[in-house]
Structures are given as C-alpha cells and as structure tokens.
C-alpha cells in the first residue's frame, strides 16, 4: 500500500478563487492510500516545495499528488522536488485544477467538486505508480541547421564556435537568404550586404561547418540526440569541388533570357549562373529548365569554356545520410502572392511592385544598378505611393491574406520612404497606413525622422484601388483624418506584402513531428518560457519560421537556439523518458502487431527459452522493446491482444483506475 501525500495549491487566487482548496485537501484525505493532505498558497514556490519535501520525510510518503496548474507547467518542478527529498520522481502525479478546472468554471461549488474528482483520479493513479528509472542514450555531437539565411547562419556560427560540428542545408544554390536581397537595414541603415557577407564567409571558412547548398532534407528518423537524416543534394550539374567560381560560364552561356529569381524576375540571368557576386559557395549552378544541353542535348558551351572541368551534365541527385544530435529549423519566410489583391493592380502594371522588389530596385547590385527607375519604362518616378498591410491583418472570412501583423512592414516602409526622399528629394512619397507600429529600440524615432526630417506624407487610410491609366497609376484611397477620398497620380506603387512561412516548412514539420500553428509557423514549446524550442525534443527554432521577425530579433533568437543546441550537445548522455513500453514476456504471443505499428522501430523479437512446469524447455518468440528508442506513444499497447505490452507511467491499470475514479 502506498503512503500518499496530497498537496493542493491555491495559485494565489487563480485556483482558490473558484476552488475551495481547503475542502479539496480535506476530501482527498479520505482517499485510499492518502496519509497526508494539505494546501498552500504557492506550491511551486520555495516554501511550497519545502512543505512537500518535509512531508515526504516526516510521513514517509511513497507517492505524492499535487493539485495545481497543468503538468505541462510544473510537473518537472515537482518531480525535482520529490527527487530532492529522496522520492522517485515518477511517484508524482499532478491533478490539473487550474487550466482545466478553476480557469474554465466560474462557480465555487462546481469548481470544488470537479477539483476533488480530478484529485481522486490522480490519487487512484499514484496508488498504482511504480518507481521508474530513465534509461540513457548517447548524443551525436553534431547539429543540423535547416535553412541558410541570417537565422541559420548565426545559429550555425554560434554552435560551431562552441566547438561542435554543424551542417547547414540550404535549398538555394547559395546561403544568405532574404537578407542578401536587402539593400539597407532599419533603423541604423547599415548596408545589408556589408554586415551579412562577412558572416557568410565565416561560415564558408569555418572548419566545423559544412554547407549543403542546393539541397533539402528528405527524411528524418530517430529522436533527440540521435537523429538520422537523409539530405537530398540536388544535381547542380557542376562539380562543387572543381568549380572556382570564375564566372566565365555564366558569361558565355547562350541562354540569356532566364528570369533572375535573385532580382525577383526583374532582370535576367543565364541558364548557368551564380546568384550573386558574394554567393557562398561561389559555385555555378545549371538551371535544368532552361539549359539547352540538359533539355535537348545541344550546346555544351559551359563545359567548353570551363578550364576547371567542373561541368557535369550527367550529375544525378545525391542522397546523403547523416547523424545529428540536434536539429535547428531556420526555414524563414516569403512575401505572399499578390494574386488575390489585384485591386492594387500588381498583375496589371509593372509599376506596382512589392517591397522586396523595391529593395532590389534600390540595391547597387540590383537590376537598375541601384537607380530608382520604374520597371515599365525605366523613368524616374516622381510620385511614389507605399501601401501598408497588404494581406496582413485580414479576417479569416475575407478569404485572403493573413490574420497576423507581419511586423516588419512598418519599419521597412519607413526606411524605403526615408531613403527615397534622401536620395531623390524631388519625389513625392506617400505612405498609406492603418496604424504605424514601431515597438523596438530606436524604431519610433526612425519613423518620426521619416516624417519630420524627410517629409514623407503619412496618410491614415487605406488604398481602395489602383488603376493604371496611361503611364500613370491612379491611386484611389481614403484619408480618414481629412475625411476625404483621394486620387493620387502615382508613378510607382509599392505594396508591403504580408509575409508567410516558407512553403517547405509544412512537409518539414511533418518529418520532424514538430507542430505548427494554423498559419504554418512552427509552434514553440512554450510561448514565453521556451521560445526557441519546438515541443519535439531536440528540434529548435530560429528566425521567421516561428513568427514574423526583423533582423535583430532573428539574430538574437538564432543565438538563443544555438545556446540550447550547445547545451544539448555538451552532454555525453541523455536521460531518456522512462515512460516507455514494456512487454511482459510471459504473456507475449510474438505476433508482431506491436512491431508493425511502432513508428520508431523500437520493437524487435527474440527467441526466448522458457522453463516449463514439467521441467521441459520451450522456445518462444517474444517482443523486446528498446527503451532508448521507444518514445512512449503507447500505440503498441492497444494492438497487443493479450495485454502483454504496457506503457510505464500510463499503464492500462493506471488509466482504468483514473477512469474509475472519475466515474465513481
């Protein structure tokens, strides 16, 4: 028989406001096995934990029940408390009387009654708990970073600097991501390339970092500390080790009219190309959709001009298997498509562009060599209208756009407006805004400078329609403060398109069993306390894949993710989850059902010799669970007809005891 202690937490008034904690501790005192029951204001506080520790010693408790907040919040805390007092931490059960009781019910009698029942269920379970000891598993001391933008670069550098090996998988031919496409960065106006490219070089030269560019993750198996990852290296038809990046091929290739994705299609590149001058790795890539040699077997110019002999038209996709201890997701973002917002005429006029396109238009390495010229006719635009919140902050029932604020648009639009006025004081610049959101260090000051020093016209209101008339764009908009409908003849309209997670994130999340929110942003393990960890152990989040972020935020999160990875890789062994499946060999039929449903391949079979009562021996096939591989889902327990397979910590008996306690 267990000796159980019950500890009811008030959580200030969070629980005590709707649950009569005294009544709960009194009622639970009468439950079988309970020898001690008390309540206290904050059980998770030091004083509260001391009450638990003292009671364990004084009453020789063999199990405890804490009626408090969600086990997702403080189960670990109270397990540590129990361990400190010499009790096996798995003899602790939590009754969730806050999130699932006091916070969702308003009346005291109802809340109290339910809290007592939840407490009884926990007591019933603890009565059947057994001490568990977690197994250990080794840690592969290498990290994988998926995505080679500023988030991935920073995370990789920080991990590598701590002495661990890091691989970066980037689906584009070069690392650098969106930041490489930007011109200046707010609020300091540093040149993006000037601060990014040295980091890219650091990555390339770091002895602990390997870059898999033009590659993607195709399969992930295993678990924290022991991931088995298959990386698909797409054929780039250029031998990376031989290519010197001289660029001769990219000048001689006769296929000149390929849309240049780095400049967002605003100019062209060749079929063999290096995305930009500072690309890392600086290796050419053949675009198979446009290469005549790959399509029709005719041409071969690049191979002829390549003195290094790096061109290989027969190259195939390659699959590489690697082991990692930790995985960092840094898959970033993209602007959303403007197809559903054609009231702004993005598909009807070349002179309606997105902000990212504007970045390229103002970038010295961009299609206009940094001169602000209209895409349609190359003329200098005299009136420019910026439209904020295009596709952000939309209601779900509006069927288009995103519900969230994209966060970065207010600031980059202020930057664009300011820089335009700075460089071309003759231009009229209008910014239509709903709200200007500038919560960041030196952010509001920056926006005010755009208005006060640079004379950008900020108009509160939204653009209703953009009509291309002749070579002008008629912008019809409301000016809410003047209570007027405006019609502005503009030369260029710039849309602050909402940003969304990269499309590859969804399938990656499935591979990693990491959860996502309804917008396909990765979910953090806890929104406040564990912001860079995913709920899946060993998978970490860096940058905009978790939510819209600017560069400073991204870099700090990247560093935070790196710190978590370093903390993990610094361990030689990981303590596993002891709540794993276990097969009772006497009852096991060896039927293989459990093996078939196990997602981790944790179950194998062996022929076991049994001594029979009549002294003969019998060899039977039985299931054996590898506790280091088992993650404890319990799927096997249900397909086992004999009930030989059970889950520690969530045993059949325990769950049924909870059911009974609730239904009593």
């Amino acid at each position, binding site marked *: 028989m267990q000796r159980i202690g019950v500890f009811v937490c008030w959580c200030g008034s969070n629980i005590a406001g709707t649950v009569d904690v005294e009544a709960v501790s009194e009622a639970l005192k009468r439950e079988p096995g309970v020898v001690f029951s008390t309540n206290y204001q904050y059980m998770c506080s030091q004083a509260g934990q001391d009450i638990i520790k003292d009671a364990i010693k004084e009453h020789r408790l063999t199990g405890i029940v804490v009626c408090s907040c969600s086990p997702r919040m403080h189960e670990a805390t109270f397990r540590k408390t129990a361990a400190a007092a010499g009790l096996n931490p798995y003899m602790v059960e939590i009754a969730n009387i806050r999130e699932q009781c006091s916070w969702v019910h308003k009346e005291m009698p109802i809340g109290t009654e339910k809290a007592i029942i939840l407490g009884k269920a926990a007591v019933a379970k603890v009565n059947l708990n057994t001490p568990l000891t977690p197994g250990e598993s080794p840690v592969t001391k290498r990290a994988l970073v998926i995505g080679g933008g500023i988030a991935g670069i920073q995370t990789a550098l920080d991990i590598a600097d701590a002495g661990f090996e890091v691989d970066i998988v980037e689906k584009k031919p070069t690392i650098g991501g969106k930041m490489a496409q930007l011109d200046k960065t707010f609020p300091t106006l540093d040149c993006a390339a000037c601060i990014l490219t040295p980091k890219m070089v650091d990555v390339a030269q770091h002895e602990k970092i390997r870059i898999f560019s033009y590659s993607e993750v195709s399969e992930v198996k295993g678990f924290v500390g022991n991931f088995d990852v298959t990386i698909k290296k797409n054929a780039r038809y250029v031998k990376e080790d031989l290519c010197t990046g001289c660029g001769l091929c990219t000048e001689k290739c006769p296929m000149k009219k390929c849309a240049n994705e780095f400049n967002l299609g605003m100019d062209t590149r060749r079929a063999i190309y290096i995305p930009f001058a500072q690309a890392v790795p600086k290796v050419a890539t053949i675009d198979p959709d446009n290469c005549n040699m790959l399509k029709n077997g005719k041409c071969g110019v690049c191979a002829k001009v390549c003195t290094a002999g790096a061109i290989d038209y027969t190259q195939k996709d390659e699959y590489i298997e690697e082991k990692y201890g930790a995985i960092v997701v840094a898959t970033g973002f993209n602007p959303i498509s403007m197809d559903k917002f*054609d*009231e702004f005429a993005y*598909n*009807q006029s070349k002179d309606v562009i997105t902000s990212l396109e504007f970045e390229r238009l103002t970038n010295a390495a961009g299609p206009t060599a940094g001169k602000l010229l209209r895409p349609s006719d190359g003329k200098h635009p005299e009136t420019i209208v910026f439209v904020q919140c295009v596709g952000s902050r939309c209601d779900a029932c509006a*069927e288009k756009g995103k519900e969230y604020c994209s966060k970065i648009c207010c600031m980059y639009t202020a930057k664009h407006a300011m820089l335009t006025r700075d460089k071309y004081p003759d231009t009229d610049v209008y910014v239509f805004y709903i709200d200007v959101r500038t919560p960041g260090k030196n952010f509001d000051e920056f926006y005010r400078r755009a208005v006060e020093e640079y004379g950008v016209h900020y108009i509160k209101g939204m653009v209703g329609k953009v009509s291309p008339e002749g070579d002008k764009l008629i912008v019809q908009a409301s000016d809410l403060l003047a209570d007027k409908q405006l019609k502005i003849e503009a030369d260029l309209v710039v849309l602050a398109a909402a940003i969304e997670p990269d499309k590859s994130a969804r399938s990656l999340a499935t591979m990693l069993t990491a959860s996502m929110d309804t917008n396909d942003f990765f979910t953090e393990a806890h929104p406040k306390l564990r912001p860079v960890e995913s709920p899946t152990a060993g998978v970490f989040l860096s940058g905009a894949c978790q939510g819209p972020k600017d560069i400073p935020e991204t870099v700090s999160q990247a560093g935070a993710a790196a710190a978590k990875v370093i903390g993990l890789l610094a361990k030689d062994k990981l303590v596993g989850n002891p709540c794993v499946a276990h097969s009772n060999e006497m009852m096991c039929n060896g039927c293989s059902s459990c093996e078939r449903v196990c997602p981790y391949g944790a179950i194998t079979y062996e022929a076991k010799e049994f001594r029979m009562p009549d002294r003969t021996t019998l060899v039977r096939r039985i299931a054996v669970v590898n506790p280091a591989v088992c993650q404890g889902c319990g799927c096997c327990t249900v397909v086992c007809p004999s009930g030989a397979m059970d889950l520690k910590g969530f045993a059949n008996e325990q769950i049924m005891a909870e059911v009974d306690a609730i239904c009593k």
Partner: protein
Amino acid sequence: MKFSYFPGCTLKNKAKILDVYARKCAEVLGAELEEIENWQCCGGVFTTAKDEVATKLSSVRILKEALRKETDLVTVCSACHNVVKQTNYAIQTDKEFAGKVNRYMAEDEYNGETKIYHYLELLRDVIGFDKVKEKVVNSLNGKKVAAYYGCLLLRPNSVMRMDDPENPSIIEDLIRAIGGEAIVYPARNECCGGYVRLESPELANKKSNNVFNSAMNAGAEVIVTACPLCKYNLEKSGCEIPVVYITELLADALGVKEDADEQ
C-alpha cells in the same frame, strides 16, 4: 447537354436581342436551353437583409424548378444571375433563412442544390472557348472591343466565383476567341450606377461617364456587356461608342445573327 434557362423579364421585353442571340448561339454550340416554365421576375436586385424572405422567393422557385428537372441553371442577364446566385448562396449558408424559405414553399425542401452557370461560364467551362473559336465564321477581325463587367458579374466574389474580381479575363478571352482585340481598361469592373438611375440620375451619369471614357481612352471601338441595365445606363449617359450585348457579338461571329433577327 440540357440546361434549364432563366431569361428574366428584361430579356422578354427591352432586351429581347440578348435572349434571342443567347438561344441561337447555344443551339449552334450544342447546348440545349430549356426555358423554365411560369417563371417570375427575379426581383431585379438582391436584398442583403437577412429578414427579407418574400422578395427572394421568386428566385427560389426558379432554382427549385431547375432541380426538379435535374438540370443546371443558365442565366444571361448579369442582374438576374447575381440575384439568383446570391439567393442560392444564402440558402446554402444561412440555415435560418433556408428554414423560412422552405416554410413558405409548399413542396419539397430546397437546400441550394442547383448549380448556376452564367452564360459566359457556360461558354468557358462547359462548351469551352476553343470550341467557340472553331465555330466562328465571321471573325471580329481585330475589332477593338472593351469588356464591361460592371459590378454584378463579379461581386461579391465569395458568392459569384466567376473570375478574379479585380483582374477578370472571361469576357476578354471570349472576345479573343471570336477574333476581336480585347481592350483592357481600369474601369471595367467599376459600377455604372445603374441602380440609382431613377433616384440620382446625375450620379448614374457620372459613374457611366467614368466607365466609357476609360474604355475609349484605352482605344475601344465598342463596349460589350451582359447587363441590360448597364447597356441602358451607358447609352443614356451619352456613351459615344456602341454598347452591345455579348450574345450579339457572339451571334455575329458565329454567323447566326440574321437567323436570329428573323425570329
């Protein structure tokens, strides 16, 4: 291919040609349009108020009749199409409204089962513009035709689902299929002000002027529409280029205009 067909009152009267050409062209293109019997006026405008039931019943009768005949429903007039389609959508999405409607109706329950095609959708999605192109005998020979959508064909898109409401192409594609040059101009999905013609003629004139001036500035020789009210309103407001129905242009291209005129 057999369809139930709802012409609507204007097409039986002031806009007869829209109806006659529509039937004739459908015949040539192999679609059988069978007119709904004993139909009533759709109501001319869809009242968005949720408590207006009686005014929507005539549309429901049309929809029910098509369902009874187990056929999809075809409409030509943009206004009728908008009213009937919005009514159908209201029945599909607003259970309370559907309940009220069905309590008014004696016969079987109607729950929005009927599929509705605008004549243009019939051409694009059922017959196919390729097929239309094959049947052209009098090409428009590059005539500069401006498609005028107005508001009723495209909006609200969550209900109409005909084309991109901001950058449509269905009429332009038809114009191209019958050999015309499609003139794309910004006001093609702007309202002509037809519904306020009686109440505020000046406002209607202003809106119509905006539309045809935009078309003419873009070089249009003729404006094409599917809506009798738009046509009337543009003409009444002094449009200097001809305003014709889509079916008229189509009948001409298919070489059946004279046949139809005789009818």
